[in-house]
């Protein structure tokens, strides 16, 4: 079990309110991702759930029981830190055993769980090494191993992959997703990387300045962002926002169109502009186009074979079914 409920939770450091009153329910077994720009309070929120940070007001309940004043160890949650926070003077085996040792678990059971975790995480050959003798990815796995063996009711991850290189990050992302499929345990995962959020989450919570902007499945957020902030944050490259006469023509203050929902042509189209930088990714090419009224530069996605030169004149046509409209306050209008 691992249902977590936040009820009118707030947090202030001194007289700076970092989290204004916030409500959120995380269902049992759900993979929830907190995503938002740096400094928006993701870590603070996670640490409040973990019990490492006191609430200024409000209430947290875990599995329906009030856990607001429960000490971290008693909440049955396990956390994986961004810095891994492994114990440097203990071997990998002892690191993984530590929570079980603190719980005074039977030695044979400890060994059984260590073996199981080590084989699941490919750590069997490294059990007698110290953390200092491991690579970043291996340390990451040890930190996850230490969390798994406790069989917690929920896992909390604070940007666990941000210290890894790009290739490893993709690999670990898959491993964590697979682990979730296997264990079916609640996971809360903090990241500022929207790709991680999109690929891993059952439910994404988009935060800005401590306020929840939108909660929903990755595709909900992609297809129907409730305001300009979410629209700009989810999706890569960023959505294009067009203001002025063109937006007014659609009866909105601002319209948004994703780069993948614009067709680009050298002969005809609704808007026209000149090619700036073209980023060739092989499969796709992202072209930055200057001179489109109300939006400069505009990013569009073209196929990898589409070749244009800097300064070429191109024509753009948005896909009307995927046009997002926003009012003056930046909120979505249907």
């Amino acid at each position: 079990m691992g249902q977590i409920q936040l009820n009118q939770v707030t947090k202030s450091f001194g007289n700076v309110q970092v989290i204004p009153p916030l409500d959120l329910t995380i269902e049992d077994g759900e993979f929830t991702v907190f995503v938002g720009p740096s400094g928006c309070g993701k870590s603070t929120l996670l640490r409040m759930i973990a019990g490492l940070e006191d609430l200024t007001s409000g209430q947290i309940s875990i599995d329906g029981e009030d856990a607001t004043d429960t000490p971290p160890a008693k909440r049955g949650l396990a956390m994986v830190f961004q810095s891994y926070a492994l114990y440097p003077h203990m071997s990998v085996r002892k690191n993984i055993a530590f929570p079980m040792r603190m719980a005074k678990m039977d030695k044979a059971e400890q060994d059984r769980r260590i073996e199981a975790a080590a084989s699941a995480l490919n750590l069997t050959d490294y059990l007698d090494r110290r953390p200092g003798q491991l690579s970043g990815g291996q340390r990451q796995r040890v930190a996850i191993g230490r969390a798994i063996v406790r069989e917690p009711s929920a896992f909390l991850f604070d940007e666990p992959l941000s210290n890894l290189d790009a290739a490893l990050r993709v690999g670990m992302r898959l491993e964590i997703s697979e682990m979730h499929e296997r264990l079916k345990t609640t996971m809360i995962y903090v990241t500022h990387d929207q790709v991680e959020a999109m690929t891993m989450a059952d439910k994404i919570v988009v935060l800005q300045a401590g306020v929840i902007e939108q909660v929903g499945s990755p595709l909900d957020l992609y297809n129907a962002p409730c305001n300009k902030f979410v629209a700009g944050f989810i999706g890569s490259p960023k959505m294009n926002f067009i203001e002025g006469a063109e937006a007014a023509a659609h009866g909105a203050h601002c319209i948004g169109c994703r780069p993948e929902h614009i067709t680009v042509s050298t002969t005809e189209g609704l808007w026209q502009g000149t090619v700036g930088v073209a980023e060739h990714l092989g499969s796709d090419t992202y072209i930055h186009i200057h001179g489109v009224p109300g939006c400069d530069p505009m990013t569009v996605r073209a196929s990898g074979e589409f070749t244009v030169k800097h300064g070429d004149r191109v024509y753009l046509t948005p896909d009307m079914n995927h046009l997002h409209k926003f009012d003056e306050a930046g909120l979505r209008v249907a």
Partner: protein
Amino acid sequence: MATQHSRSAARIMLAPAVILLLGWMLVPLIMTLFFSFKKYLPLRGGDLGWVGFENYVRFVTSSSFWPSVLTTLVIVGGVLVITVVLGVLLAILLNQPMWGQGVVRILVIAPFFVMPTVSALVWKNMFMDPVNGLFAHLWKFFGATPVEWLTQVPMSSIIVIVSWQWLPFATLILLTAIQSLDGEQLEASEMDGAPPLARFAFIVLPHLGRAITVVVLIQTIFLLSIFAEIFVTTQGAFGTKTLTYLIYQRVLESQNVGLGSAGGVYAIILANIVAIFLMRMVGKNLDA
């Protein structure tokens, strides 16, 4: 320093310092060795010629030799235990965020700036004096007979005085070490269910291992040659005669330079034995 040229330049530039240091060390060492094989009584005939190992034999066979070695080791050991234990506790305390932290830290470090002679005199006359000392007044206030610290419990008194001087050093080193402890490790262990004492034993103490080693090694070097505190308090009486004090007595009170020099060589040997033991015991903390 990659090239041949920069390496030889570095050697030339280091040379003056190395030569100075070598001279500084070698001259007294060679003089000590030289005199230790001579009968040399400055006020009773001066240099009376070579005597081989006679001084060495006389020094060890004297009834004061082994007690003085023991006294030295007891003082060093006692001070080490007190300063390391209290130093760790004080470092943890000073690391807590509290009001007036800066001032408190300076106050704690202050004893280190007091000269050993001065601090021993202050302790002897202001605290431990059986008539006018602060402790005597305290004892009398509670209706007890004042303790004559330096005659009844001389060793403990000296250990207390020396510990007071060295505690700031230990605290300072351990405080800087504790400040470098990653807070997330403590949080992780808290989430792993470790109560405060276990957090101290499994996280804080191992983290301090290296700093404790440094404290132990440096203090040992200085404490083995402790002198001023004994000179101004007990003058070596009541079983507080350390090896250095014994050497001092041989050279200055008995005016026997040869015998004292032989004692000096024994002191070097003792220091090396202690150093080897220490390196065996704690030296591995310094690698890795």
